[in-house]
């Protein structure tokens, strides 16, 4: 009896992956291609920082346009595609349901990518809006919003058809991300474009939106992946799991207040940045709870998935602490308006989001393809490039930012500031190039695993018994 039920469940789990195969591989693949595109823009940008005349004669590639294109390709191309794929996979797996709505999701994914392509092209010809994190030209907004709705359909179906009434932490996070993005995106659409607020009210709303993209959309997906992967791979239940829901609600309810802290000393009513700075301290509670739950990720060695996850989780915690520290007025007076902001963005996006997404992709892709990764050398090379590139980039930008901030607060000339930051910007360029190489490697490797035929023997080993599934939380 036990054997039959285990076999039945094993077959079911495997069916989930078979039914999810095409849409999810498509989303992850297009995400990786966007990551490469964004990496190329990032290298151009990094060179322009120390050699301003680089490609300056080309109107498509001014520093500002490339910067916006890079951010858009990264957020909506890479993180959007890969994040939705991971969220959908988590919801189907934990709901123990066949992946329903695959065609709708694929269709949504196709139009989402058309939208991102239009957006990046539009930015290069000068149609960007001036809001950081929301540079998408206005004509792509509705297309992106509607196609996101289509992409999220399997997630909603998997949630409503879930076999366990009680949901796991990974499910809350994944579902919250799918639900909240369209909501705050449409709020921003109304308050910034359809009926724009007056003057710098727009800056407040844009800062609120940009923070939500990270805290309410991408970070929950990454956390969902962590809450799923760690107990799954280490085969141990998460400690202090009873606090997980408190951690979840602190993130959702408080993190969305922290955005306008970037406007400290700016031309906005003073209560707004003050409130945000306070919220950045309160949200530390969330980081403490997820640390209690997921800190086991630092103890386990061996698996490349957990190695990526450990670095990603470490940077996620650092982002929380750094956001609280660098928003303090005494610190912000030096670091505001400097490369330190770029360092923090890199810590958040290239560190926590991307590294945890890589962990999830290294876990999910073999299951979707029914075979192991073809080359362990490629995995190791990618890991080395991603980690070294990321750490060097963050350190170089942080030092450059501190030097720049000190110099800006004196009366040093801008030529002098450029000369003082130049060595660090050169290091940052090398780091961006290394990251690009790593991303090319993982994209190549991903295309290879998709193209290779299934290995039945390997596929069997992935069919984990239901006990493992349940221990996920």
């Amino acid at each position, binding site marked *: 009896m036990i054997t039959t039920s285990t076999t039945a469940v094993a077959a079911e789990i495997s069916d989930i992956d078979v039914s999810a195969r095409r849409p999810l591989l498509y989303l992850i693949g297009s995400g990786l291609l966007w990551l490469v595109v964004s990496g190329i823009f990032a290298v151009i940008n990094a060179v*322009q*920082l120390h050699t*301003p005349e*680089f490609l*300056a*004669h080309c109107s498509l590639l*001014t*520093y*500002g*346009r490339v*910067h916006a294109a890079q951010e858009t390709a990264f957020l909506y191309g890479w993180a959007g595609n890969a994040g939705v794929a991971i969220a959908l996979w988590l919801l189907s797996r934990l709901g123990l349901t066949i992946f329903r709505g695959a065609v709708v999701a694929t269709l949504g994914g196709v139009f989402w990518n058309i939208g991102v392509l239009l957006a990046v092209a539009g930015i290069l010809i*000068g149609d*960007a809006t*001036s809001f*950081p994190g929301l540079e998408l030209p206005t004509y792509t907004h509705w297309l992106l919003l509607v196609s996101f709705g289509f992409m999220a359909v399997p997630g909603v179906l998997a*949630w*409503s058809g879930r076999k366990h009434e*009680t*949901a796991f932490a990974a499910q*809350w996070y994944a*579902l*919250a991300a799918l*639900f*909240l993005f369209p909501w*705050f995106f449409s*709020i921003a659409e109304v308050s910034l474009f359809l009926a724009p607020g*007056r*003057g*710098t*009210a*727009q*800056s*407040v*709303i844009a800062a*609120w939106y940009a923070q939500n993209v990270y805290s*309410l959309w991408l970070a929950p997906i990454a956390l969902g992946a962590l809450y799923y992967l760690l107990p799954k791979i280490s085969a141990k239940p998460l400690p202090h799991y009873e606090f997980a829901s408190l951690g979840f*609600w602190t993130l*959702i309810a408080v993190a*969305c*207040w922290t*955005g*306008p802290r970037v406007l400290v*000393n700016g*031309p*906005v*009513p*003073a*209560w*707004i940045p*003050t*409130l945000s700075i306070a919220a950045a301290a309160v949200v530390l509670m969330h980081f403490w709870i997820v640390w209690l739950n997921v800190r086991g990720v630092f103890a386990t060695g061996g698996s490349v998935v957990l190695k990526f996850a450990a670095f990603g989780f470490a940077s996620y915690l650092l982002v929380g602490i750094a956001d609280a520290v660098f928003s303090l007025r005494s610190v912000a*007076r030096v670091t505001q*308006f*400097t490369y330190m*902001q770029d360092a923090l963005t890199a810590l958040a996006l290239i560190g926590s989001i991307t590294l945890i997404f890589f962990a999830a992709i290294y876990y999910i892709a073999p299951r979707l393809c029914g075979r192991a990764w073809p080359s362990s050398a490629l995995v190791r090379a990618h890991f080395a490039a991603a980690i070294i590139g990321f750490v060097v980039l963050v350190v170089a930008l942080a030092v450059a930012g501190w030097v720049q901030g000190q110099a*800006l*607060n004196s*009366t040093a000339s*801008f030529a002098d500031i*450029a000369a003082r930051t130049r060595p660090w910007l050169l290091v940052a360029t090398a780091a961006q190039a290394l990251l690009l190489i790593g991303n090319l490697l993982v994209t190549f490797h991903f295309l290879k695993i998709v193209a290779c035929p299934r290995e039945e023997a390997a596929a069997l080993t992935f069919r984990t018994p239901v006990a493992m599934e349940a221990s996920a939380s």
Partner: protein
Amino acid sequence: MRNGITFFLGLFCALGLSWGALVVGTRSQYAGIKPHYDDNEGDNFPQRPAGVAARGQLVYQDLGCAACHTQQVRRPGIGSDKERGWGDRQTVARDFLYEARPQLGTMRIGPDLANYAARAEPAGMIPDRLLAYLYNGHGGMPAYPFLFEKRKIAGERAEHALKVRTEAGYEIVPTGRANDLVAYLLSLNHKYEFPEAQPATHDKGEEGEKK
């Protein structure tokens, strides 16, 4: 978390609170900001930007100038914004009342431009000289040659051609976009005084920022 409805309601309230305060609250506070009537000048400030400057702001936004230049001055005592001559007072929400898209910016790879016109005039930055800077690049700023047209001199040299070095028999003429951008830059000046932008007389710090 057994109940799906409670979960969604929770999500809705959690985001709804910050939406209510930071989006709706901010907007309603801004709706109450009025221009300041200055008795000495006999006029309201800030004033609406001229059409050519508003067009120039679109060029500024489209080229992504805000990626390197801020347009927000911190109050005297924070950093050296005042010492660098970027402005004698901090910028406040009222300064941007009539701007379609305030370009506050987040990075100071180049100087702040909130009051660029105020220091351009004494420094002798006439439009021609600014155009030449845009054409050639200046300091760390790259050149923007695509804002200019290089054309063969037919008959006489055009009056508005730039006085920059170029091939013999050719002249460099600014496009409309270049002229709009320069007009915008030379309109950036918060020269009036607002009560809320005055530094606090007692050393309480935050008072000066409040509305």
